C-alpha cells in the first residue's frame, strides 16, 4: 500500500443490515472536505446508460460460452419428505445429457451448514438432483425422466404449529431459535433489555398493546438468480448475478476446497439483488460441480418460478407490541414480542428479526424485546432491503400513531418530542442526525397542517395523511480497497470490487475519482466486480457501498494526484504544493503555466501512475446512521376497498448527496417497493403440499407505474456529515422502511379504521369498514 499512514491498524465498528461488526482497519490519510465541487453533487448521467439501453452491457444471463451446457435442478414437490429411491439412469442416458448429480455424488459439499443436494427435503422447492444438457429443452426432458420414490414426512408451515407441543422437530434442537443473523440462541428467543420495561409499562399513565402481522414478501429481482461456471484446468471462473463477488468466491473456495487464487468470480452488471444475492447459492455450486463433471461450461439460471420457490424472501412476522406513555406524550416504555417464521434458515444467513425499530427509533429508557425465529417446512429466507426494520416499522410506527390518537396529540409532534439526540441503545451521539429536519420538511411538503380527523370524512372516497420514520445504521466502513491507474495517455481506470446493483455505483465512483483528480468524466472508466482484477470490498449490502468504497476511491485518486504533481513539479519548475489539476491539465496556481496530464504520464519511467488506498476506520465514540421521514396521502375507495397513494413525500438524511438523479431514483424505487409491500404483495401457499401458489410475476403482483403516485417527492434534509472524507452515508435501505406504516397510518386517518395486517388488501379493508355483504 502506498498510503502515507500505512501499517498502523486499529479496531473499528461498522453496522451491516442492523448488526454491528468489529473489524481491523488501517489508518487513512486525512483529506479535507471538498470545497466547491464541479462533479460531485451533480446529476451526472449514468456512465453505463448507453451500454444498458443498447444491450451492450453483459449480465450473467447474457453470458454464452463455447460448448456451454444448460443446468437444471429437480426440486422437491413436498414440504418435507425423504428420498427413499432415486433413479437417475434414464435421465443420464438421454442423448444430450452430459452430467447428472444426486445427493450421493456431492456428499460433503455444503453451504450454510447444509448439503447442496439433499436426500431429505425440508421444503417444497429444495434441490434434490441436478443435471446438465446441451440445451434447455433436453435438460427439462431429462428432469422428467428422474424417478423418485418419496416418503413424505409430517411438515409444519405456520409458526404457531411449529411451536405447538407435539410439533414435529425439524431439527434436533427443536424449532425455536433466537433471531438475527444466526442462529443466535438455540432453544430460546433472543432477548434485549434496557431499563425495566415491564415495571415502566405498569406505572405508565397510558398504555396500549397491539398485534401486527406482516406477510412473507419476495424480492422479485428483474434478473433471476443464476451463475455460469467454467473450469480451465484447476481454475474455476464463475459469472454470477451477485451483490458481492468476494463473498461468492469464499463460499466456492470453502465448499470446493480451492485456493482463492484459482477462483475468479465476475459480476460487471447485475439486475437487482435487494439482499437476496449477498453470496453464492446452491445453484452456484451445482453449476461448478456439473461443469467439472461434464468438462464443459454450465449455465445455471433459475426460471422465474424457481426464483420464487428456491427461497430468498422477507420472512413474515407476528409482533405483539406495547407502549407506555405519559399523558403529555412522552414514551416511557416499549416492548415487543416478535415471532418470525424462518423456514429452513441456513447457518450464518439471515434468520429474521424485527425488533430493531423498537430498540432504536425513539428515546426511551425502558425497552424489552423478545425475538423468536421459528423453523418451519419452508424455504430459507434471506436479507431483504432493511431486513427486520421494514416489518418492525410497520408495527411500531402504527402503534405510535395509535398512541397519538389515544392522547389526542399530533403524530408528527409526538414523534418530534420523542426523538433521541443520542443513539438510544449505546447512549453515544450520532455523527449527524437530520431526522427532525426530515419530519419538518416532509410535513411542510405534504401539507400536514391540512390533516383532518377521520370523523370529518364521509362519502365513498376518503383522503388521509400518514407519517412514519426510520433510523438505519448506514455508515459503511472497511474493508474496502480501491485502485486507480493513470495511463500514459491520461486516461484513468478506477478498479473496485463493488458490484453495481443498478443503483449507479459506477457513475458515482466516476464522479468521485474525476472530482478529486481534476480530470474529465470521459477520461475515467470504472471497472468493477472481478475478484481477479479488482481489489477487495464487502458486498453491496447494508446501504454501505458509497460510504465504504467512495472514501477509498477518493483516497486512491488523491494518491495518484500526489504522484502526478510530484512528477509535474520539475517540468513546470515549481513546487508540487503550488500546483493543481484542472480540466486534464496540471496548472500553476499563480502563473497559470500548465502541462497536460497525458504528457506527464507519458514522460514517467513506468508510463503509468498507480494509487491504491483503503477505507480507514470509522470514528470512535459516535454512531453512524441514516434517517428518513415519509408522508403518504391516500385516497380510500370505501366501496371497493382499494387504496390509491395519491402523493408521497420521502425526506432523508443520508449525508451528502453525490448524484441527485441516481439518489432520487433509488429512493423512489424503495418507496414503490414499499407500496407493493403495503398493498399488494404476499406469498401464498397450498397448506397441503407447502408449494407456492403465486410463484411468478403473473400472480405475485408487484406495483406497476400506474400503482405509483404521480410523483414521489424526494427531499434532502441532511446536515453535514463529518465521519468520512466524502461526507456521504448510505441511502439504499432507508427508503423502504417507513412506507407501509405511513400508508397504513394514512388509511387510518382516512377511515378511522386500523389495518394491522399487511398487505392492506381490498378484502381486509372492506372487512374493517364492515361493508361486506
Amino acid at each position, binding site marked *: 500500500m502506498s498510503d502515507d499512514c500505512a501499517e498502523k491498524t486499529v479496531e473499528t465498528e461498522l453496522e451491516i443490515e442492523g448488526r454491528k461488526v468489529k473489524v481491523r482497519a488501517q489508518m487513512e490519510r486525512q483529506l479535507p472536505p471538498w470545497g466547491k465541487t464541479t462533479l460531485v453533487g451533480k446529476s451526472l448521467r449514468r456512465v453505463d446508460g448507453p451500454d444498458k439501453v443498447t444491450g451492450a452491457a453483459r449480465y450473467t444471463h447474457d453470458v454464452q460460452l463455447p460448448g456451454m451446457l444448460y443446468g437444471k435442478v429437480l426440486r422437491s414437490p413436498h414440504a418435507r419428505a425423504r428420498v427413499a429411491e432415486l433413479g437417475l439412469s434414464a435421465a443420464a442416458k438421454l442423448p444430450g445429457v452430459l452430467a447428472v448429480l444426486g445427493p450421493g455424488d456431492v456428499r460433503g459439499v455444503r453451504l450454510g451448514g447444509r448439503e447442496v443436494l439433499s436426500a431429505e427435503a425440508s421444503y417444497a422447492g429444495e434441490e434434490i438432483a441436478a443435471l446438465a444438457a446441451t440445451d434447455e429443452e433436453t435438460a*427439462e426432458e431429462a428432469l422428467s425422466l428422474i424417478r423418485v420414490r418419496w416418503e413424505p414426512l409430517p411438515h409444519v408451515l405456520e409458526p404457531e404449529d411449529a411451536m405447538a407441543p407435539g410439533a414435529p422437530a425439524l431439527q434436533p434442537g427443536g424449532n425455536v431459535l433466537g433471531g438475527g443473523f444466526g442462529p443466535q440462541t438455540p432453544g430460546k428467543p433472543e432477548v434485549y433489555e434496557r431499563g425495566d420495561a415491564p415495571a415502566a409499562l405498569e406505572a405508565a399513565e397510558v398504555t396500549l398493546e397491539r398485534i401486527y402481522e406482516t406477510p412473507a414478501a419476495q424480492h422479485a429481482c428483474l434478473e433471476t438468480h443464476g451463475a455460469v461456471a467454467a473450469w480451465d484446468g484447476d481454475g474455476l471462473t464463475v459469472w454470477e448475478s451477485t451483490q458481492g463477488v468476494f463473498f461468492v468466491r469464499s463460499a466456492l473456495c470453502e465448499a470446493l476446497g480451492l485456493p482463492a487464487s484459482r477462483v475468479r468470480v465476475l459480476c460487471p452488471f447485475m439486475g437487482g439483488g435487494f439482499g437476496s444475492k449477498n453470496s453464492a447459492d446452491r445453484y452456484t455450486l451445482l453449476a461448478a460441480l456439473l461443469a467439472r463433471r461434464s468438462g464443459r461450461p454450465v449455465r445455471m439460471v433459475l426460471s422465474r418460478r424457481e426464483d420464487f420457490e428456491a427461497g430468498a424472501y422477507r420472512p413474515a412476522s407476528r409482533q405483539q407490541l406495547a407502549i407506555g406513555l405519559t399523558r403529555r406524550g412522552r414514551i416511557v416504555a416499549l416492548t415487543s414480542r416478535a415471532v418470525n417464521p424462518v423456514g429452513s434458515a441456513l447457518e450464518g444467513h439471515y434468520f429474521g428479526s424485527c425488533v430493531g425499530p423498537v430498540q432504536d427509533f425513539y428515546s426511551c429508557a425502558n425497552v424489552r424485546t423478545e425475538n423468536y425465529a421459528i423453523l418451519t417446512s419452508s424455504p430459507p429466507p434471506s436479507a431483504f432491503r432493511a431486513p427486520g426494520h421494514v416489518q418492525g416499522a410497520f408495527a411500531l410506527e402504527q402503534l405510535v400513531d395509535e398512541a397519538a390518537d389515544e392522547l389526542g396529540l399530533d403524530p408528527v409532534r409526538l414523534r418530534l418530542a420523542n426523538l433521541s439526540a443520542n443513539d438510544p441503545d449505546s447512549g453515544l451521539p450520532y455523527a449527524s442526525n437530520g431526522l427532525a429536519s426530515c419530519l419538518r420538511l416532509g410535513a411542510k411538503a405534504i401539507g400536514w397542517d391540512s390533516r383532518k380527523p377521520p370523523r370529518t370524512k364521509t362519502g365513498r372516497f376518503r383522503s388521509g395523511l400518514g407519517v412514519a420514520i426510520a433510523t438505519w445504521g448506514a455508515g459503511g466502513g472497511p474493508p474496502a480497497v480501491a485502485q486507480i491507474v493513470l495511463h500514459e495517455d491520461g486516461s484513468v481506470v478506477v478498479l473496485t470490487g463493488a458490484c453495481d446493483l443498478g443503483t449507479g455505483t459506477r457513475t458515482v465512483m466516476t464522479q468521485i475519482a474525476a472530482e478529486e483528480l481534476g480530470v474529465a468524466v470521459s477520461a475515467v472508466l470504472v471497472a468493477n466486480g472481478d475478484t481477479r482484477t479488482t481489489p477487495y470490498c464487502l458486498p453491496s449490502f447494508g446501504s454501505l457501498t458509497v460510504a465504504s468504497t467512495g472514501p477509498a476511491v477518493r483516497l486512491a485518486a488523491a494518491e495518484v494526484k500526489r504522484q502526478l504533481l510530484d512528477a509535474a513539479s520539475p517540468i513546470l519548475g515549481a513546487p508540487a504544493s503550488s500546483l493543481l489539476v484542472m480540466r486534464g491539465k496540471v496548472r500553476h496556481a499563480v502563473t497559470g503555466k500548465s502541462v497536460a496530464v497525458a504528457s506527464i504520464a507519458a514522460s514517467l519511467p513506468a508510463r503509468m501512475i498507480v494509487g491504491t488506498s483503503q477505507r480507514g476506520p470509522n470514528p470512535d465514540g459516535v454512531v453512524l446512521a441514516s434517517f428518513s421521514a415519509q408522508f403518504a396521502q391516500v385516497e380510500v375507495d370505501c366501496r371497493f376497498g382499494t387504496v390509491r397513494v395519491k402523493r408521497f413525500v420521502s425526506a432523508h438524511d443520508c449525508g451528502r448527496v453525490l448524484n441527485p438523479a441516481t439518489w432520487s431514483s433509488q429512493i423512489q424505487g424503495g418507496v414503490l417497493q414499499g407500496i407493493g409491500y403495503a398493498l399488494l404483495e404476499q406469498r401464498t401457499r397450498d397448506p397441503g403440499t407447502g408449494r407456492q401458489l403465486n410463484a411468478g410475476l403473473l400472480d405475485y403482483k408487484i406495483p406497476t407505474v400506474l*400503482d405509483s403516485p404521480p410523483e414521489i417527492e424526494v427531499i434532502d434534509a441532511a446536515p453535514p456529515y463529518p465521519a468520512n472524507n466524502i461526507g456521504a452515508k448510505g441511502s439504499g435501505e432507508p427508503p423502504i422502511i417507513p412506507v407501509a406504516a405511513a400508508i397504513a397510518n394514512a388509511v387510518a386517518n382516512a377511515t378511522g379504521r386500523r389495518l394491522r395486517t399487511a398487505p392492506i388488501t381490498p378484502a381486509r379493508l*372492506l372487512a374493517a369498514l364492515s361493508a361486506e355483504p
Partner: protein
Amino acid sequence: MRARLAGFSLERPGTLDEALGMLAASKERLTLLAGGTDLYVYLNAGVARPGRWLDLWGLDELRGIHEVGDHVVLGALTTYTELRASELIRGALPLLAQAAATVGAVAIQNRGTLGGNIANGSPAGDSLPPLLAYDAEIGLRSARGRRFVPFDRFYTGYRASVAAPDELIEQIRIPLGAGSSSRACRFVKVGTRAAQAISKVVAAFVLGRAGDGTVDHCRAAFGSVAPTPVRLRRLEQHVIGKRIDPALIRTSSDVLLSEIAPIDDIRSTARYRRFVARTAWQRFMEEVPGL
C-alpha cells in the same frame, strides 16, 4: 421454455382457403395460433398441448374493422391496439376500446387478438363482457361454409365452445346500434393492481331508457364470476320496464347475486368477487346520466 419443442410442429398457411383445407383434412384437432399471447404462455409453462399448430397470423383475410350495412365487422385477428386506435370502435362501440386498453401491456396489445381472446375462452377475458353486452355474433368458417353464432350461446362450458374441429373464428359481427350514444354504458375491470393484472371481476353494462324514463334495454355481462363469461339475463329482465330508483338498485342487486357463481382462487375470493360484482352494478345504476 419448459416445453420440449420436439413434440410440436408449426404450419403456416398462406391463404384462408389453405388454412380451411388443412383444418378439413386433419384427423387430429389443430391448435390455432394467432397473436400467441396465451399459447406462448402455456408453452413456457410447459402446459401447451403438443401436436400440429396452425399459425394464422399471416392471413390478412382475417384482419380489418369495417362497417358493413348495419353491422360493424371485425376480423378475428383484430388486435387490441387496433381496437384502441379505431375511430369507428371508439365512437360506436366504446366499451370494446376501453377493454382493449386494459389488456396486458402495450406489447401484448400489439399481438393479442379479439379472435384469440374468444377462442382461448378464459372466463376472465377482458374483451368478452363487452362483446356480450353488444350482442356480438361470432362468424365461424370452415371448408363447409360460414355460420354465425350469437356470442352468448358460443360457450358450452369452461373453455369449451360450439366451434367444430374444422372451424375457425373468421369474424365478429356487432349491430351498429348496440353501442348507441343514447344508451348509458360502462366497462369495469377490477384487478389486483392498476395495470397488467388478470381480472378479479370484469363487467360491461349497457342500458337504454324510453321517453318516460323506464328501462327499455339492458345488458349486464360479467367475467370471472362463472365458468364462462356470462350475461345476467334475469337481472336484465328484472330492470326492463322499470324506473331506476334506490329500490330497483337494491332488488336488482339481489337478483345479480343469485345469478353469479364465482369461486375462490389465487387472485381473489368468491366473497370479494360477489361484493365487487354487486358494487360495480350499483355504482353504474346510481350514476346513469340524467338520474
